[in-house]
């Protein structure tokens, strides 16, 4: 019986490993992967699916 505060399980898109996410995670939210630290975007819930967040656009200046 899962309560709504149990962590949610999802697959880390880079390493394929199963990772735990906060229960209240929402679609569109950006979270950092506990495995790689990479920023991931929540694409959908039930099941929770994740994608690598768009590459941070570096301010290249010059």
């Amino acid at each position, binding site marked *: 019986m899962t309560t709504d505060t149990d962590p949610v399980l999802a697959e880390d898109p880079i390493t394929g490993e199963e990772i735990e996410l906060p229960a209240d995670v929402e679609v569109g939210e950006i979270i950092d992967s506990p495995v790689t630290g990479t920023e991931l975007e929540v694409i959908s819930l039930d099941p929770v699916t994740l994608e690598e967040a768009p590459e941070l656009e*570096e*301010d290249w*200046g010059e």
Partner: protein
Amino acid sequence: VETYTASVVGGTGFTGGELLRLLAGHPNFEVVQATSRSADNMTVGRSHPNLRDLDLRFSDPDDLESVDVLFSATPHGVSMGRVDDYFEVADTVVDLSADFRLPEAAMYDEWYDGHESPEYLERAEYALPELNRENLPGADLIAGGGCNATATILGLKPLVDAGVLGPDSGEVVVDVKVGSSEGGAGGGAASSHPERSGVVRPYAPTGHRHEAEIEAYLGLSVSFTVHAVDMVRGASATCHVFPDEPVSKADLWKGYRGAYADEPFMRVVSGGGGVYRYPEPKSVAGTNHGEVGFELDPGNRRVVVFSAIDNMTKGSAGQAVHATNVALGLPETAGLEFGGLHPVGSP
């Protein structure tokens, strides 16, 4: 004395400030306008303390005054949208962003977000005189080189000219160290002083935009990585190359002196005595000089090339003024004679 009127669009940024400094001190130029949306009607000296003597206030970039030469020091993506307006008020337009830097529109689709006025690319001349001097006289649209590409091109050009390096050479690894002014004056946590002091921070682990520019102008495909280090100004490129044929120190000296002996701003500094034995940003800080040097590593069939410039001058504002001197037929070093300081703090 021939004098030309000049304006600087985007005058509050570091690059804009350097342009104003060089032009205000240039015997053949008179600065008549410096624009800024954020600091409209404020004095230039408020943004740039070294320009407190310049009797000029920023004005609105939408009321451009007619001038002989308009310098645009705006972020990428601005001047490609305003170039028609620029030509309505100026005979010569010098852009320091990347907007006219690459020769083909397709490259902007791949590395930037496309191009709004690709029809101007054909007309644009790459600013770096050490590479493109013969095409600059009379040019009316000049595109400043990127500072990392400038440092790399200056370092490797002599090897390409001497046939030591070519399109099918082995790996060419370029490992660049730059100061914080390269990230521009932009804010953000990463560029706050507490987070930025004493860094050796990979800033662009893979540098496609720089690679595209270098490939376009040197015909060399390079593997590029940029690190931020604890300087404000300065760019130092270390190029690791593996020529197919063994090369000797004598060949290297001949190639580098041949390429740069007559260049007013270039110095070959390689393994001499004293403290500054190889090229270093400290040695060229504030000047339009470029220092290049090399070391032979026979054990690894490798040549290590060092190239140091000040990204604010040789890498942008100085290069723009140097190219404009050539375009207008003025003495090449006019307004660019400052030789640097010693001792000097972190550049």
